[in-house]
């Protein structure tokens, strides 16, 4: 299994601690970029937590991803303030520039994954997107191209 050493370190850090499953899965996701079937099974075997429980938790929370994701994550804020400031046009422009259809969220070259999030808490700068850990505000569809270029 890929990343076995890293996952073992993560498991050892949390094993036996109460309420450790979510932080453990967050850690595992940070390592591989998503939660693969293989990793979830391995965690289940090593910790004794039932696979059904792990899968249940992983599918309940929106931050857990069960599919590989792109190198850069674009989070498009769809909060109220962004919605009334036309966040939809920003989303359309991003999908347009990255040639993503409405069913796809990751570009073919694996460079970007686009997702919408409920609120990034930067409402005064609406509409806002976050690329990896960087937030960009007061956007117009015209400003998208320049931002995406930085991550190509």
């Amino acid at each position, binding site marked *: 299994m890929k990343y076995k050493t890293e996952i073992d370190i993560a498991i050892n850090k949390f094993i036996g601690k109460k309420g450790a499953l979510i932080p453990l*899965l967050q850690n595992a996701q940070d390592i591989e970029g998503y939660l693969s079937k293989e990793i979830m099974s391995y965690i289940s075997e090593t910790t004794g937590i039932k696979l059904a*429980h792990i899968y249940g*938790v992983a599918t309940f*929370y929106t931050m857990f991803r069960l599919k590989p994701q792109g190198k850069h994550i674009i989070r498009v804020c769809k909060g109220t303030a*962004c919605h009334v400031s036309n966040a939809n046009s920003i989303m359309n422009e991003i999908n347009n520039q990255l040639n993503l259809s409405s069913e796809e969220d990751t570009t073919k070259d694996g460079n970007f994954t686009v997702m919408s999030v409920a609120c*990034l808490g930067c409402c*005064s700068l609406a509409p806002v997107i976050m690329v990896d850990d960087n937030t960009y505000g007061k956007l117009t569809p015209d400003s998208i191209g320049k931002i995406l270029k930085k991550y190509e």
Partner: protein
Amino acid sequence: MSLVIKVGLASCGLAAGAGEVYDAILKHIKKNKIDAEVKKTACIGMCFVEPLVEIYKEEKKSITYGDVTPENVGDIIDAFSKGKPVEENVIISNILKGSENKTFKKQKRIVLRNCGIIDPVSINDYLEKDGYSALEKSMKNMSREEIIDEIKNSGLRGRGGAGFPTGLKWQFAYNAQNEKKYIVCNADEGDPGAFMDRSVLEGDPHSVIEGMIIGAYAIGADEGYIYCRAEYPLAIKHLEIAIEQATEKGYLGNKIFGTDFNFELHIKKGAGAFVCGEETALMASIEGKRGMPAIRPPFPAQSGLWGKPTNINNVETFANIAWIILNGAKEYAKYGTEKSKGTKVFALAGKIKNSGLIEVPMGMSLRDVIYDVGGGMKTERPFKGVQLGGPSGGCLPVELLDTIVDYDSINKTGAIMGSGGMVVMDTSSCMVDIAKFFLNFTQNESCGKCTFCRVGTKRMLEILTRISEGKGKMEDLDTLEELSENIKKGSLCGLGQTAPNPVLTTLKYFRKEYIAHIKDKTCPAGVCTALIKYEIIEDKCIGCTVCAMKCPVNCISGERKQVHYIDQNACIKCGACYDACKFDAIKKG
């Protein structure tokens, strides 16, 4: 006397480019050998003019500049050093005439007392502002009962939204007989349009931690959790640093102030589920389970985390505690109305001029909050409605602008105070679309446990979608109301019980707009794409080709200097042509 330069580096500031400004300042003072201390601070609440830079030699004679850029910050510093400060973009100043700030004048800052003033990751800054002296006072001079009584007498109510009296909540946890108790801070600020808790955690994490320690001491808890959204990386980072510092200084850990009181504090990162803002769901999530709400009773005060008595309060509630202990319940109760004491922090957003964070005494009218403190509307378009309380709240029209801001007055309108999000809308917002937006949100976030919430919100969303596409029937409005009542009754937790509020309030106050969608098949605000059409006005089109170039689906044709034409079948109604046309030659209708 050396110069002090403070830069606001909270998430909002950073997004506006404050990081670059900070670097430019360091470069400028190094290059010109200026004797200055450059300090980092967080958000003072005036997000609309970020990046903000405060500059002074004596703290009482300071100037705060807004919209600062890496290019102009050098001039600002040089001019100030020479005693001739730049007079443009002054936001707050007590030395320049005419820049007295209305935004601040009507505010009373208790929760935000240190935000944007201190360096949030410096415990010494916090200690200088009487930090941890409330903890010392409560542990050395007060009994546990006295602390709880003080909070009760202050009239403080839970700032997370529901407004349950905090002192009473503490009393229940105190009364529970158990050797092990927990205290939890709910920092899972999930309401879209609300960012009060983020700002407090980023800007003054110690105030929340101090409030929690006082609470833990009062109820007899020895372990605590802060459950924070993972979408707030900076808040989590500041909390981690603050916990480490407080432990080092002995405010956390064993034998605090030499007593037998021990307290250990952990941070739990959320994983993205709105329902986890509900206290029983939040506890399930801390335990590592799916965050689904449980039936109450038993209440957390009897059986909470891992079956032990647990007290849960919101970030803003905890941030009030130290102030109340230091200044007294009476002083706190001076602010506010009969049943809602103290102040409330609001996040102003949407089409308002001064968007950002404000803290006002309860009892102020919505009109004063929006027009005096918030500076009124951002554009020429008139006010249409204000959305309070996020997905659990409602939209209030212009006729209700004189409603007083307190828990009970707002509840009467059908909206709720909620955690304090206030999104102002002008005539470019469609109320059917807003109701649909919130329903879509709650429908996505419903955990699926209760049938009414799971299926009922889905049916409501289908009806709203139908109406927004011009396929609605008048009976749909009755069905929406009936479903709303049933969902309210048939749901276990706050998410389901309040999910219909956005629909009910818009139906009550903006019914005409629904009827326009159903009967006239039009969207008066021009938002619902199925009901709008873009057309080129032949007389005005000069054939500049800009619209054709902007169109993402190439559905606009026409030769240069000839009238252009939109192919209605291919048009996706994105509005790009409408925004691009400089000759008002495109009609939206």
